[in-house]
């Protein structure tokens, strides 16, 4: 855990210097009062996520847990470890882009590459051994009717 956190800090610093001018604009638009006290907030810097492991760490494990085993509260957060629904790479990609029940949609946040990366990651970790790979091009068509955060 600690090693990966350090990695995050480094990635953020790289982003800060590499994106100079672009970073200024990103900052400018980052405070995000939206609906409510929820989104009526400010969203701080996002870690740069260079591969599937980093996407998993910075986005997915808040719910699916670092070991991919999910959790059971009053509802179940599905395990990714040993989940037969991962047999088809298109399924997790669809769920990530469109959301599923209480799970947020990541359309508008994760890029095609990041979706493909993390799908390939979860299908080849946590004891999963699927060898076929999803490509960013496979993700593109899922965008057509994907949900978009509500705007006025």
């Amino acid at each position, binding site marked *: 855990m600690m090693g990966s956190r350090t990695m995050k800090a480094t990635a953020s610093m790289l982003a800060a210097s590499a994106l100079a001018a672009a970073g200024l604009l990103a900052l400018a638009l980052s405070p995000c009062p939206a609906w409510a006290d929820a*989104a009526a907030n400010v*969203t701080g810097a996002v870690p740069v996520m260079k591969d599937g492991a980093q996407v998993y760490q910075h986005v997915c494990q808040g719910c699916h847990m670092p070991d991919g085993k999910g959790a059971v509260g009053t509802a179940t957060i599905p395990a990714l470890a040993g989940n037969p629904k991962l047999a088809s790479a298109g399924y997790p990609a669809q769920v990530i882009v469109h959301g599923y029940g*209480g799970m947020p949609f990541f359309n508008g946040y994760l890029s095609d590459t990041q979706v493909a990366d993390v799908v390939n990651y979860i299908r080849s970790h946590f004891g999963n051994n699927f060898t076929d790979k999803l490509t960013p091009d496979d993700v593109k068509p899922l965008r057509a009717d994907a949900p978009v955060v509500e705007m006025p």
Partner: protein
Amino acid sequence: MTEAPSRSTRRQLLSRIGMVAGTAAMYQAMTRLGHAAGSDFTSPPNLSGGKGQSVVILGAGLAGMLAAYELRKAGYKVQILEYQNRSGGRNFTLRGGDRYTELGGGVIDVKFAAGNYVNPGPWRLPYHHHAILHYCREFGVALEPFQQFNMNTWLHSSTTFGGKPQRYRDYMSDFTGYTAELLSKAINQGKLDDPAGKEEREILLEAMRDWGALDRDYRYVKGLHASNRRGFDHEPGGGPDGAPTPSTPFSRDDVMKSGLWAWMAFHMNYEMQPTMFQPVGGMDMIGRGFARQVGDLVTHQAKVSKIAQDDHGVTVSWTDMAHGGATRTTKADFCVCTIPLSILTQMEVEVSDAMLAAIAAVPYASSVKLGLEFKRRFWEEDEAIYGGISFTDQGISQISYPSHGYFSKGPAVLLGGYMFGPAAYDFAGMTPEERVKHGLQQGAALHPQYLKEFSNGVGWAWSRVPWIEGCCGTWSEQARRDHYKTLTTMDRRIVLAGEHASYVGCWQEGALLSSISAVEQLHKRAQGAG
């Protein structure tokens, strides 16, 4: 002088950012453009003539408790089933001695000194959230001002002004001043002759001089005009050496490029405008106020597993966790269900297919809050910050200083981070201890005293809270269009309520407004069926 960006050029700007800065920036930009979360509340529901029919209410949050209060008053026989061993739902407060285990096994162990607290859920009430204010008044919940807007807080960007935080006041003065100067220049050079008539231009010039603290030549420059806004290098004093010396504005280039102007717009949002309030002693004083009215109706530790209905009534199956996990059923004529959709979507619920689709259509946002206790109020003692919010482009996003206990000695708790979106996903993925550690490291960029003065802290991630597994409903454009009406319309004998069933999502006001709509529908239905 170009005109204000139109909606389409704004979209182009956003898409340009999406290209150069990654889609995350796009996501953030999009989520800031939301609904103005006001309230259409005018008066409490006036129901009467209930004929003793029974209502089972699922959930003892504010929506459920309000429904119970109004329905009992109207003559219904009411009971509430609540999963937790407490009432209030997301309306709650963490104090020293509290201990929670989150999903994944992390332990939130609160070690605050007596009297200190943090509100991990709702924490402030806008003056126009009339319903929540109405019921606070009715239930005797004492409110005090919540300091939302404080011009002496910090704006911090890691990439501008050398990473050094700047006072909101200084930045706002300079941004306003330079903007006014530019507009004045455009007018004086005849560049606004076309869009604005002579009289309007004269008015505007005068307004800009006033608004921007410009000198007689319409310049924003170092001097007493500007320092009356941004403060002085040497503050005005008494005696022979009392004359003030003006402070030096930042360069226009730095001001514009820094992007810090976005944080000024934050306070202009309808839902963020002063006056705001907080309950004296912690947000859960509101939940307690509601519980004083209807606490006798609540069965705690009741885990609902199934909600069925037929022509004759509703049957709720639940596990009685307070009595060895016994299986029980409760029958009633009607049901008000306030269970969060993130949970409800995995339950067996006998409603129309359209309603089931609606329940499954609203994902829940992730949100993280950090409550940090320090040995002393260094933000007050060293920096003259009394309440309000500092902003940063780091993950923690903002730091909010307590709006109560000013000038007191001893330890105090501030909100060391409040995150939604990408930063919330990131922090939720850490252990509670790591959240605090990263919060401290990031906060130290604004307050070097952080590390020396730190005492203890908590990191609360809503996506890991077992009884909701998320913070609040996140409507997409499509879901709102396709499912909102269905979700909020009574389905035979079952009606839903909660912030998710409103246009004031994620606010307590939304929970109350949806509850009022639910009991009105229920009453109408019950009268008609009577």
